[in-house]
């Protein structure tokens, strides 16, 4: 309508409006940058208050974590230990199952099977984490306790297994993307030399997609480290230096939830611990995500 309008004044006004809209849209784009800045500023400034009272060395090397008790100890190692147990345990389950699922979907499955399996995996990926927590507590833990009578009501194994189940779809779908990106010609060359499908899959397709698969593993570990509700419900609230999966432990995320659920006064040292723990959590996951991104970018360069 207005483009046929010969009134030049109006067209000039239209240009002012254009600039305004461009500015508004730029502001929208800026929100995401501000979010990152906000996260960093909040974590750093609030942690700074914490580290004025607790020396950084004690925080990073202490083997006891008890900020909510009268004998306050602020060594984060037990929480890191718990987090790593969950991440390692989850990966022991999710890595082989996720990768072999991806190989099946990309190399073996017919179109029809893919059409059924992929939506099912998406449903598994879309189930809220609190539901997984419930599943761990009422199904996985009782099964574990029947098999290992020594296991507690809350134990690291249950948390690790449920987090593993949760991240299988992620490993499977990202690894499958990497496998599908391997050029067909590589596979055909191997078949031409007389390789069987098994050999083509494991000795050609998987090695060719290795960087993409590695990137998916790292992202999955990062996700396992940041996972909160399932671990809070299943693995317990006992920070300790143990490697026994049948014992109750506490992860960094579960600790943050524990403090938030309690009546910790704002501004107290206990309150500030969640920012210090949050900062450690943020830095670990950020490092892993950046690493995964770097690996994926290199991978893309190889085949495009």
């Amino acid at each position, binding site marked *: 309508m*207005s*483009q046929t309008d010969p009134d030049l004044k109006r067209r000039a006004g239209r240009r002012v*409006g*254009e600039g305004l809209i*461009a500015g*508004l*849209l*730029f502001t*929208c*784009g*800026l*929100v*995401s940058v501000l*979010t*990152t800045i906000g*996260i960093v500023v*909040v974590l750093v400034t609030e942690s700074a208050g914490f580290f004025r009272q607790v020396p950084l060395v004690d925080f990073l090397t202490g083997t006891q974590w008890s900020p909510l008790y009268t004998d306050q100890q602020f060594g984060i190692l037990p929480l890191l230990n718990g987090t790593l147990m969950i991440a390692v345990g989850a990966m022991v389950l999710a890595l*082989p199952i*996720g990768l*072999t*699922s991806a*190989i*099946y*979907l990309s190399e*073996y499955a017919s179109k029809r099977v893919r059409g059924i399996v992929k939506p*099912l995996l998406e449903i*598994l990926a*879309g*189930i*809220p*984490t*609190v*539901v*997984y927590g*419930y*599943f761990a*507590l*009422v199904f996985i833990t009782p099964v574990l306790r029947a098999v290992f009578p020594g296991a507690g009501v809350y134990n690291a194994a249950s948390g690790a297994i449920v987090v593993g189940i949760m991240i299988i779809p992620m490993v*499977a779908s990202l690894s499958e993307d990497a496998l599908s990106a391997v050029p067909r010609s590589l596979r055909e060359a191997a078949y031409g030399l007389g390789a*069987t*499908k*098994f050999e083509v*899959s494991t000795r050609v397709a998987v090695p060719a997609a290795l960087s993409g698969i590695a990137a998916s593993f790292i992202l999955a570990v990062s996700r396992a480290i*940041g996972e*909160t*509700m399932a671990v809070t*419900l299943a693995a317990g609230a006992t920070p300790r230096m143990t490697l026994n999966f049948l014992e109750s432990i506490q992860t960094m*995320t579960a600790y*943050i*939830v524990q403090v*938030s*659920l309690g009546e910790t006064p704002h501004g107290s040292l206990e309150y500030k611990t969640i*920012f210090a723990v*949050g900062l450690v*959590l943020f830095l670990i*996951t*950020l490092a*892993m*995500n950046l690493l995964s*991104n770097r690996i994926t970018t290199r991978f893309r360069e190889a085949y495009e």
Partner: protein
Amino acid sequence: MSLQDERFEPRLARRRRNGKIFQAVCLSSIAFSIAMLIILLFDVAKDGAAWFSFDFITSFPSRIPDRAGVKPAILGSLWVMMLVAAISFPFGVGAAIYLEEYAPKGRVRRLIQTNIANLAGVPSIVYGILGLAIFVRFFGFGRSILAGAATLALLVLPVVIIAAQEAIRAVPSSLREAAYGVGATRWQVVRHHVLPVAMPGILTGMILSLSRAIGETAPVILVGALAFVAFTPTGPMDLFTVLPIQIFNWTARPQAEFHGLAAAGIIVLLIVLLMMNATAILLRNYYQSRRGG
């Protein structure tokens, strides 16, 4: 020749057998995931069916399991969902339009894009910490629906932006060029030609983001949603609870009755999620058939 064949054939059989075993292993991996999904759904249905009723949906939570319900949690979740949509839609779509249609290729655009990718990998509980410090304390929203919704809006923003970008990128450039050709300004091209075509994709992404927001627990706990709410929220500044927190609270109790309530709560949550996903699919199909015709 025949000697070579004799040496070769047994190995081929073994190689083929190994292949069969490997295929079976891969297939059983998939079967494991599907079995877990079935067990999970079956378990929830079995435990929750007895507690799931009309009264359960319309009652307030109670210390007596028989009288407990999820009314405030459902209303809280609906409030949060509406506000998350109202906040994340304009900002998310605006950012996507900026990145796809306005931003010059260069450092700023790359910075924003990398930043969005990294934000998508930040654990949800870290958003909760951000929300606690910024919305609850700094802006003084308190433990309100608004604080929870603003936090979750930031959480899903990367997903909304990425989905909207994909939808906008899929709009054929011939459409833009035709509009520019008859003298339309950049915003007119976006407003009248790009957005209408991209809208189904954008809306689908939006609904999927909302279904993520509605299932989130940890960030909402951080901003202080309550476990026990015996009133219905009436405005964005009210105290509130949401379905996942009510489920968490019941699950964390030792008594079996409360586990039954938790399972019934999960049924409600999964039905809501199912309805949202079905809406997204219907929406996509509707627009696709309309565009095709």
